[in-house]
């Protein structure tokens, strides 16, 4: 109907504002509802647009028809004068219940229409979603890239720690203790199965708490020989994984980080020498066996980076993580060129394959 006919036939009928969204669709909205949006209000007052279909007000790009519907629902409710604060609050609480993606779109759209109360409402709701989450969780919720360099991440003012390394360590300690207990109980159990599990845990532990000094001849020669044999075997089987993993590493952020690693690598030799001095001392027998493993010389920056990658891979590759971890960690150690670690519990377990020094 044309505006003129409407005016003659039903003078008391509402007047409408015509709005056009970015996809081209045009709709009419009750005037008092539409005018609740400052942006629309300004357009109508200053330019006279919106009075008919041909002169529909072009809404900002961030406002699609579905979101517009929500916004108009909001306006329709709040533009009514008589409502109590309690009513408005109740409406808002119900209104805000939607999935995160839609909430983001709504915030963005409300901002472009300069509808401040709705911007505040949605922003606050988004803040509540963010509250209490770790950076990884936030990234997942909002589908954001993980593109910070390690240097930036390690920068200070992280007064809390949510260190995956420590969690990993605890998990491994618990697992190791459990398995030591089991091994004691079931000495005659099927060797192969146990070996697979224990080997991976041992290796993980030995990586994280690698006993230094193989190269300096502290360890028994017996263990050394066996390990060398195992080392060769390991190499051939793991090259494939090296490649795929290397690719993924290359495509992930910042070559700067790798540069940093190189610098730190050069500094390694002196540190390992010092660690060697200490390794001649020993831990008190009071502590549990695995507590006897000493920390190696890994630079914390690299460790952090490595462990983060480890977790990512573990998630992505989605396999039984102990074995996968072992492979990844062994690759990681190759990258870092650290002396080989040997599990010293009198068994013929393998060690993590480490070539260079």
């Amino acid at each position: 109907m044309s505006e003129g006919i409407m005016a003659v036939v039903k003078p008391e009928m509402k007047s409408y504002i015509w709005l056009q969204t970015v996809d081209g669709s045009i709709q009419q909205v009750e005037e008092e509802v539409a005018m609740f949006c400052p942006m629309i209000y300004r357009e109508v007052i200053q330019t006279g647009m919106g009075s008919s279909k041909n002169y529909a007000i072009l809404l900002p790009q961030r406002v699609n028809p579905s979101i517009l519907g929500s916004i108009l629902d909001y306006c329709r409710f709040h533009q009514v004068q008589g409502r109590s604060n309690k009513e408005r609050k109740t409406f808002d609480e119900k209104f805000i219940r939607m999935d995160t993606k839609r909430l983001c779109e709504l915030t963005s759209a409300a901002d472009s229409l300069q509808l401040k109360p709705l911007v505040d409402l949605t922003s606050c709701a988004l803040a509540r979603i963010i509250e209490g989450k770790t950076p990884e969780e936030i990234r997942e919720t909002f589908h954001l890239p993980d593109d910070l360099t390690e240097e930036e991440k390690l920068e200070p003012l992280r007064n809390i720690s949510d260190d995956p390394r420590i969690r990993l360590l605890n998990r491994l300690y618990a697992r190791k203790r459990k398995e030591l207990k089991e091994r004691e109980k079931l000495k005659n159990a099927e060797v192969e199965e146990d070996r697979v599990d224990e080997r991976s845990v041992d290796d993980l532990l030995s990586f994280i708490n690698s006993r230094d000094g193989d190269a300096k001849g502290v360890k028994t020669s017996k263990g050394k020989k066996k390990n060398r044999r195992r080392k060769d075997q390991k190499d051939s089987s793991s090259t494939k994984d090296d490649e795929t993993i290397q690719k993924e590493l290359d495509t992930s952020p910042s070559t700067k980080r790798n540069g940093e690693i190189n610098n730190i690598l050069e500094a390694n030799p002196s540190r390992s020498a010092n660690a060697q001095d200490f390794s001649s001392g020993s831990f008190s027998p009071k502590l549990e066996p695995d507590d006897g493993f000493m920390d190696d010389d890994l630079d914390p920056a690299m460790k952090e980076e490595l462990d983060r990658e480890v977790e990512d891979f573990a998630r992505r590759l989605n396999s039984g993580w102990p074995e996968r971890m072992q492979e990844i960690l062994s690759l990681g150690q190759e990258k870092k060129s650290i002396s080989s670690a040997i599990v010293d519990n009198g068994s013929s377990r393998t060690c993590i394959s480490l070539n260079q020094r």
Partner: protein
Amino acid sequence: MAYSFPEEVLEHVFSFLHSDRDRNAVSLVCKSWYEIDRWSRRRVFIGNCYAISPRAVIRRFPEVRSIKIKGKPHFADFNLVPDGWGGYVFPWITAMASSYPWLEEIHLKRMVVTNACLELIAKSFKNFRVLVLSTCEGFSTDGLASIAANCRNLRELDLRDSEVDDLSGHWLSHFPDSYTSLVSLNISCLGSEVSFSALERLVSRCPNLRSLSLNRAVPIDRIACLLRQAPQLVELGTGAYNAELRPDVFSSLSGAFSCLKELRSLSGFWDAVPAYIPAVYSVCSGITSLNLSYTTMQNPDLTKLVSQCPNLQQLWVLDYIEDCGLEAVAASCKDLRELRVFPSDPYEEDEFDIALTERGLVSVSEGCTNLQSVLYFCRQMSNAALISIAQNRPNLTRFRLCIIEPRSPDYLTLQPLDAGFGAIVEHCKGLRRLSLSGLLTDRVFEYIGTHAKKLEMLSVAFAGESDLGLHLVLSGCESLRKLEIRDCPFGDKALLANAEKLETMRSLWMSSCSVSFGACKLLCRRMPRLNVEVIDETSEVAESRPESFTVQKLYIYRSVAGPRLDMPDYVLSMGEESPDLIG
């Protein structure tokens, strides 16, 4: 999603995040969020002034308006940190003076603040509003005069527990007559008399004054006229609350108090005379916070006062309250959230027999369902009581128990208190802060390492049997940020086995333990981002100390600023060769 979100909108979302934790998390999400957080961060908290250089903070957060910095380790409160240790705020002030001209707030804790700092603050920040100096030292009332004279927009001046060289009370008169914006003033730590007329004029011309904590030198007969000038007060700390009882003074005081309709917090009451206490009864029904830790008042007057406050949420009191008083608290103060009971006579100089035992705490834990935070000094404790408390109040977030005599066992069974504290950590899953005392073996640390997953700060004294204890805590407590230990048989092994854990924490303090010099050096070499500082006040020269030498005091903290340059000669940094990684 990120690409369709304009920066201003994201910045607006961030403005609804109030905790540092959340802002920090947000800054680590991705590059764009990092940048947005950087530029929009207005409030920064530096938990350890040596963890980062001022330049680095300024470089990263160019638009800061409010900064909070902490200096000395917590055990400095117990005189374990010698004078001259450090914690100087001057480098921060000079750096901020040139880079943060719009700085509004400075909050400092356990730092050395000189008059030069205060003068620089007064001159450099045109819109300066809030100065909070908590347990600080190094300045005199001259410095305060500069602040008073120059900070036209000052809202808050809070000197809580600081040590001030109190030259005279004249500094208060330096507030110009045109100055009217005072909202909060805490001078309770000052010794000398401030000019009372200046104080009165100040109070009368500041209509927004909400919090006023006077010092002891303000006599009781002057309070009434002050209160009449400021009926809008929300917090009041009286001065000395004693005098010979005079009916006119009493009724004046009583009348003045009854006009304080907004009053929620009361403190002060030095040397309180019971006869004058009823003057405050009219405000008791609204009181939510009561600090009677300077009051030597005893029962029954003390209990009578506290039981008049049904809406009490926070109570700080001396052990004069006794078990019977706490039972009354449990019955009348149903909304109590925080209880601190301090010892009136910790060194047992008097022959007084104070009837405060574990029973008082147990009653409060039974009667006050909102109780979250406890600091309790007493002379006896039992496992049964602790278990009871744990079961009654699983919502505890802070539990600090100080049994005055070190290594006191369960007084009923003579057993260690492992089981009791074990129950605390097992039931109170949200526990963030814990102080241990009494006779404790390694077992208690096993409980703590197993259950206390949210624990952030742990204080240990005269406890444990071996390195295993320390190891269990360091390896088990995932959220641990601060650990302070004194007089425990913990040595090198646990420390070195958990070297990396230390970098996830803010700091570790160990004094009178069994850590060797060699281990400190090794730790430092292994962890370049840890500052390992040995405090040794014996006269031996550093180089002559053998590796096996047991260090007296050890303070380890993570830092990206490298070893600090302002150490006194009795503090040795183990990291002379450490590179300065950032900044």
